[in-house]
């Protein structure tokens, strides 16, 4: 069974630019979560998508947004990049809501803002 995949592996952007990160969940999983792991910090919840809808977002500004496509893959967009957005962005998927609480993570996208 293929795991969660993320692309690109690394992304280097300049302050003020936009970044787009992509995630493909495990087959059969309908929920996608995005987390940020900044240097020295733990994993912080960013966004939750389920069945194509944004269900909740963490304590992040509106410049962080995304969407979930009909095939349940997801995209995270970060607008007007700031230096402090440099972090590892992790995507996780889980089975249809209520079936299981386990989340399975992809390898992450390392975003560097210069």
């Amino acid at each position, binding site marked *: 069974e293929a795991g969660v995949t993320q692309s690109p592996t690394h992304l280097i952007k300049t302050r003020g630019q936009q970044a787009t990160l992509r995630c493909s969940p495990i087959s059969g999983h309908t*929920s996608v979560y995005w*987390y940020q792991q900044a240097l020295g910090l733990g994993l912080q*919840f960013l966004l*939750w998508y389920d069945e194509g809808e944004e*269900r*909740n977002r963490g304590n992040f500004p509106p410049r962080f947004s995304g969407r979930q496509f009909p095939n349940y893959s997801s995209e995270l967009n970060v607008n007007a990049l700031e230096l402090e957005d440099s972090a590892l962005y992790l995507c996780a998927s889980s089975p249809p809501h*209520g079936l299981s*609480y386990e989340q399975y993570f992809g390898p*992450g996208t390392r975003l560097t803002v210069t």
Partner: protein
Amino acid sequence: DQQVKQNSPSLSVQEGRISILNCDYTNSMFDYFLWYKKYPAEGPTFLISISSIKDKNEDGRFTVFLNKSAKHLSLHIVPSQPGDSAVYFCAAIPSGGGADGLTFGKGTHLIIQP
């Protein structure tokens, strides 16, 4: 306010001995607890979980214990092996799941010494 705390940033254990990783939580709404293992440059890997209706869950070399009254859980790894060297994250989620994602501790770096 850190709702999930892992107070030991690192732990060194001899190969073959028992590794005990600890985690405390403050939010009494948390109902389900998970442990993840993370190698550098990889996403977290799900290890084992426990529901608040249980006090122990075992899977091979890994056992998680939950003391709900003390709001404390621990992960026991026995015997410890070199491949267990990684950062271990404790995570929690409320009953009903999902909405706020997983709340993670900051991790404990486990080092298995030969």
